[in-house]
């Protein structure tokens, strides 16, 4: 038996963990823990009911009203939702958002993973590089981002200067509707610091004995990556995937700042939440914005649930 195929056995040999975690089901001790559990949950429950649920339900209620922020809301039933069916700008924003999520999340995670793997090596100065690579993520939603991004992707930005060096004529990447979304994907990929750090942590957690076993087997670095690193990292990949998808669907600030709040050029960067904000605060149509918000919540919830279901087939838990 080769060392690699033994891996599976190794994993299975670990002491069986308790069935635990959220949704682990109420066991015998259920009644016993109730008091303690709810005591521990008290701050969260107060927060939930007083601060979180109230406004959430208010927005749910508003989703069925015509509410212009200044006058009292008026009940209009499902009208906001039926309007969504024929709102072409909304459909466009869904297309833009889905494209963005589908392209930027895998790219960002792949880059974060790649750099995490590279930076995990025992090469000198890695702490320095880590900090450097995290720096753009700190800038986050700063107003300066809009200007910085123009310095890179504007008609006279860095990219065009570099292209000119090799004799290619650039273009206004941000201002052309066909490439504007691409620059926002780049912006999101650029701020890969948080998932990178989490990947790094995940890599540190993979027991060295697996690699030693693989080394005995004479596995090359690619093979080690495929057979050990990747499978052992799936829980972390899953964690990042779930969070980044939720995050990307709610993506707002970067598009807002870069497009000057317009979602332009020509609605090409009109993310769903940007359009929602535009309706709510720009057009004083908070009822419609609330309806949009709840529709987005349903989309995200369904996708997250699907993600959890699918995870059973590809995510490998060590316990």
């Amino acid at each position, binding site marked *: 038996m080769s060392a690699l195929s033994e891996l599976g056995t190794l994993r299975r040999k670990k002491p069986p963990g308790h069935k635990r975690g959220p949704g682990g089901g109420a066991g015998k001790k259920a009644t016993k823990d109730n008091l303690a559990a709810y005591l521990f949950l008290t701050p969260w429950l107060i927060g939930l009911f007083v601060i979180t649920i109230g406004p959430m*339900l208010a927005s749910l*209620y508003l989703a069925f009203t015509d509410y212009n922020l200044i006058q009292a809301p008026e009940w209009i039933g499902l009208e906001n939702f039926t309007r969504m069916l024929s709102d072409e700008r909304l459909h466009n924003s869904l297309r833009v958002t889905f494209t963005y999520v589908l392209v930027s999340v895998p790219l960002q995670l792949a880059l974060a993973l790649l750099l995490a793997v590279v930076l995990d090596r025992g090469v000198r100065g890695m702490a320095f590089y880590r900090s450097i690579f995290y720096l753009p993520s700190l800038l986050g939603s700063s107003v300066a981002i809009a200007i910085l991004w123009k310095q890179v992707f504007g008609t006279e930005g860095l990219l065009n200067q570099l292209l000119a060096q090799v004799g290619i004529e650039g273009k206004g990447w941000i*201002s052309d509707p066909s490439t504007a979304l691409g620059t926002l994907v780049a912006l999101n990929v650029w701020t890969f610091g948080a998932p990178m750090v989490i990947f790094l942590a995940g890599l540190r957690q993979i027991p060295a004995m697996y690699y030693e076993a693989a080394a005995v087997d004479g596995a090359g670095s690619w093979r080690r990556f495929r057979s050990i690193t990747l499978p052992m990292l799936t829980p972390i990949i899953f964690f990042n995937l779930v969070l980044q998808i939720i995050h990307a669907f709610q993506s707002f600030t970067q598009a807002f700042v870069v497009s000057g709040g317009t979602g332009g050029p020509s609605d090409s960067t009109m993310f769903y939440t940007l359009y929602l904000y535009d309706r709510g605060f720009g057009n004083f149509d908070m009822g419609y914005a609330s309806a949009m918000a709840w529709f987005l919540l349903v989309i995200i919830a369904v996708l997250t649930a699907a993600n959890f279901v699918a995870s059973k087939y590809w995510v490998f838990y060590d316990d």
Partner: protein
Amino acid sequence: MRPLIRTVSSRGSRRRFRAVAAIAIAASLLAASACGGDSGGGANADGEVTLRFNWWGSDTRHKITQEVIDSFQKEHPKIKIKGEYGEWSGYWDKLATTVAANDAPDIIQMDEKYLREYADRGALLDLKKADGLSTDKFEPDTLGAGEFDGGLYGLNAGINAFTIVANPAVFKAAGVPMPDDKTWTWDQYTQIAAQITTKLNGKGWGTGAYGTNDASLNMWARQHGQSLFTKDGKLGVTPEGVTEFYTNLLKMRDAKATPTAEFTSQDMNAPLDQGGMATGKLAMSYSWSNQLNALSKASGQQLKLLRLPSVSGKATENGAYYKGSMFWSISSRSKHPKEAAEFVNYLANSTAAGNLLLAERGVPPNTEIRAEVAPKLKPADAASHAFIQEIVKELGEPSPPPPVGGGQVEKIIQRYTTEVLFGRQKPDQAAKAFIDEVNGEIK
């Protein structure tokens, strides 16, 4: 909404309240918004009144405005003014939120875009009914922009006119003489701009493209006997008019008078001091007159204001009008409308305030104040002041403020201009879609 509010606040509501407890939390929140709350600033025992005053702007404006507040408080020890400021987009989010929560500031710096949005829904006070606010010394044409439905909801805080701003240095570099803006037509304007583009040989363009804000369409419409919005709050342009507007835009582009679509698209949302005018890429562009100072500063050149070209070659027919660069409004829910009016009166009519503000918010509409501050203005502000004086004889009727929902037109027109310039829509398609969409937004 009404039944729910009553459910929560009336006597027999307890059972239902329990039954739909969660919803009621929400409803009570809304009820709070609908039936009053504490708007802060009250009068204390010794009759001192505190007012909240909101404005947007940059750091220069924040400082100057704070000085005005200080000088007002010195003269009115019983009135305390709390200044709150921020940048443009956050300002409107905050204002909408505070108004929704019945927590609006007493004195509000208002923009034409949102004036009717708030006024038509009863959030603003009719200044005609405000005690102690005088408009006697105002240039008559300047009040119209804040006046509708028989009330005055925004007091002009500075005069603005839509103009072409020109960079003499770029003209010189291209070896093209400055045009006579009193007689020029659109065709001459296109020719001149195209000539500059050719002479600059890739280093710049003759003029920026129009259609990047609603004002340019409004001016075009006014030159063609229409108006972007009518007095009764409807859209005043026809599909044919807008088609022609876009056809001419393409004509100018094809003549190389204006830059590429990419440049225009980037330029339309660039902050003023990063635009093509500030960076010296354009010999001419469209601008509001009160931006001359900022543009001159940013470009490092003494820029010049020109009248818009017209169809007929007569300056009196180029559609010019006085717009309010911004307005002073008072919240209708202010607990101290009298004191608020007193402060607005101070802002608009006192020489002390005028001498501090100068042309920070545009040329003062109060003619006496204007005469008083004129000699103290910085060169660029003095130039825009002179321009405003010069065109007074050529003005048409004031342009009605956009109706509720009309504040969105700027973004809509930018979008269709982009579509047309990138060749994604033909002028007539874009015109029709533009009109349909605007009609859908106006309430």
